C-alpha cells in the first residue's frame, strides 16, 4: 500500500539535546497510526515537524510525497491538525471558526458552507454553531477543533493527544468520530491512553527518548511482550496463609494481593512447575495466566518512573 507519511532519519536537537534521534517511519495510506510515549518522548516534536511548524535539524519528512522542508505549503494544503491545546478563536462563533479555516485554505463559500453544515451535524454542534467556544464544554470544544481540521477535507489528519482532559463520554464520542474517518484519510495520532491506542489504531509505535522502541499492531505488541510468567491465583479459603508462603518461594519475584486473589510474577516461564508443586493441595478457585495489556507493554518499555 502507498505511504502517506514517510520520515527519513529525522533528528531534532534543542541546545545539543536530541528530542528526536534519527527517527524513520512509514505510515500506510488510509490507516490509523498511533504514536505512544511518555512525556518528553518526542511525539509532539515529530508532529510539529510533520505539520511544518518546526524544521528538523537533520533528515527530511514527506507527507503524500511532499517534503516538509521544500514543499511546506503543499503539505499544509493536505493536512488537518488537531493540536494538544484547543486553539479556537474565542471571539468568533463556532461556525465562524470553521469559515475562517475554510478561507485560509482558499475555499469559496459555495464549497465551505455545505461542508461546514455537514461537519457541525456530524459533531453534534449544529444547534450551537452561532455560540462562542468559551460557552462550550471541553468535549464540545474538542469536537469543534476536530471539525475545523476537517473543513478542507485533508488527506492526512494529525491528532496530538486528542482526548486529554476529556470525560469518558466525550472521549468515546470523539473515538467514534475518529473511527468514522478510518479509510477515508490517514490518521496520525499521539496519545498517553493505551485503551485509546488499542481501540483506534491499526498500527502502534512506542517511542521514548526520541527513538522507536516497538512497532506493530496492538495484538502483535502484546504477543511480543507476553512472557507467560505472570499468573493470577484465587484461593477459596485460608488466603492469608498463602501470602508469606508464596513470597518465600525462590522462583517468585513478587506477589501482589487483592483480597483472595494473588498476582504472582515468576522469575521465568520454567517456574510454573515448581509453583504448581508448591500449591499442591491448596483450595484453589481459579488460576490463570495474566495476558499483558498494552499498558504492560508500554511500562515495560518506557519504565514506571514518573516523567517531568
Amino acid at each position, binding site marked *: 500500500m502507498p505511504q502517506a507519511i514517510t520520515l527519513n532519519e529525522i533528528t531534532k536537537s534543542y541546545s545539543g539535546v536530541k528530542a528526536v534521534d534519527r527517527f524513520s517511519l512509514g505510515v500506510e495510506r488510509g490507516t490509523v497510526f498511533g504514536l505512544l510515549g511518555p512525556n518528553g518522548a518526542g511525539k509532539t516534536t515529530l508532529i510539529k515537524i510533520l505539520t*511544518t511548524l518546526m524544521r528538523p535539524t537533520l533528515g527530511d519528512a514527506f507527507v503524500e510525497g511532499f517534503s516538509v522542508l521544500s514543499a511546506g505549503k503543499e503539505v499544509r494544503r493536505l493536512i488537518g*491538525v488537531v493540536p494538544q491545546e484547543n486553539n479556537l478563536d474565542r471571539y468568533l462563533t463556532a461556525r465562524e471558526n470553521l469559515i475562517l479555516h475554510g478561507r*485560509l485554505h482558499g475555499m469559496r463559500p459555495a464549497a465551505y458552507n455545505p461542508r461546514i453544515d455537514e461537519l457541525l451535524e456530524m459533531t453534534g454542534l449544529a444547534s450551537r454553531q452561532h455560540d462562542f467556544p468559551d460557552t462550550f464544554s471541553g468535549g464540545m470544544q474538542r469536537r469543534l477543533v476536530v471539525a475545523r481540521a476537517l473543513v478542507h477535507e485533508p488527506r492526512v489528519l494529525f491528532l496530538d493527544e486528542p482526548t486529554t482532559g476529556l470525560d469518558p463520554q466525550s472521549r468515546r464520542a470523539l473515538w467514534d468520530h475518529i473511527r468514522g474517518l478510518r479509510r477515508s484519510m490517514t490518521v496520525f495520532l499521539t496519545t498517553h491512553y493505551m485503551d485509546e491506542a488499542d481501540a483506534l489504531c491499526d498500527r502502534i509505535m512506542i517511542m521514548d527518548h526520541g527513538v522507536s522502541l516497538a512497532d506493530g499492531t496492538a495484538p502483535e505488541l502484546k504477543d511480543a511482550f507476553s512472557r507467560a510468567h505472570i499468573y493470577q491465583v484465587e484461593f477459596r479459603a485460608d488466603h492469608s496463609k498463602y501470602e508469606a508462603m508464596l513470597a518465600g518461594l525462590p522462583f517468585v519475584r513478587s506477589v501482589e494481593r487483592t483480597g483472595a486473589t494473588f498476582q504472582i510474577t515468576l522469575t521465568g516461564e520454567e517456574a510454573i512447575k515448581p509453583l504448581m508443586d508448591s500449591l499442591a493441595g491448596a483450595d484453589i478457585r481459579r488460576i490463570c495466566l495474566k495476558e499483558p495489556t498494552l499498558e504492560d507493554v508500554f511500562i515495560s518499555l518506557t519504565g514506571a518512573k514518573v516523567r517531568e
Partner: protein
Amino acid sequence: MFKGAFSIWGRDMLVLRRSIFSELLAVVAYPLTLYLAFGFGLKGYITDVGGVPYPLFIAPGLISMTAVNAAFDDSSWSMWFHRRVQRTIEEYRVTPVTVYDIVIGKIFSGFTQGAIKGSVVFLVILLLTPFRIDYSHLPAYLMCIGISSMTFSCLGTICGTVIDKPENIGRVQSVVIVPLIFMAGIFFPLTSYPATVLPVIRLLPTTAVFEGSRDALLFGSIPSHYFINLVLSAAVCFVLAVYTFNRKMAE
C-alpha cells in the same frame, strides 16, 4: 496573492464590528478630554502658536495621536494574544497561508483600526467643538494618518511578536511610545526646544507624524522632509516587522 492576509484582516474587522461602540467610546474619551482640558483650559493663557489658535494647533496632533496609539495597541496586543494566549497563530500556520500573509494581515488590521479611530475622533471634535478646517486639506491629512498608522502598526506587531510577558508591552508603551509622542510637539511648538536638541527632535518619526499632520490639516500640504520621514519610517518598520515575525516563527 495575500488571500490569507485578507482573510485574517477580515476576521479582525468582524471582531471589531462586534465591539465598535464600546471601542470607539473608549478611544474618543481620552483625546476629547485632552482637547477640552488643554484647548479650552489653556486658551486664556495661550492665545495662539505662530498665528494658529491654540485649540486648532493641538487638534490635528490629538487626532493623529489617537490613530497611532490605536494602531500600536491593536497590533501589539492582538499579535501577543493570538500568539501566546489563544495560539491561533499556530492554527493559521498549519494552513497554506505563509507567515507573510499572517504578519501583513495583522499589520493591516492595526492600520485600519488606527485609521478608523483617528477618523472618528476627528468627526467628534468637529461635531462637539468650534474646530473647523478647510476640507480641501483632508486628503493630505488622511494620507498622513494612514502612513503614520502603518508605522505604528508595524511597531506594535514587532512588540507583540518578540515580547512574551504582557506587562512588558505596557512598559514599552510607557517608556518608548508615550515619550516619543509627547516630545514631538503635540501641545507646544518645536521652537520651544533648545537649538542644540531641535535637529534630533525633527528627525523623530513622531515629529513627522504630528508636525506633518498639523501642516497637512491647516495648510493642505506635508513638508517634504516630514513626508520622506513618514514614508521611510513606514517602509523600514514594515520590513522589520515582517523580518522579526518570520524569524520568530522559524525559531
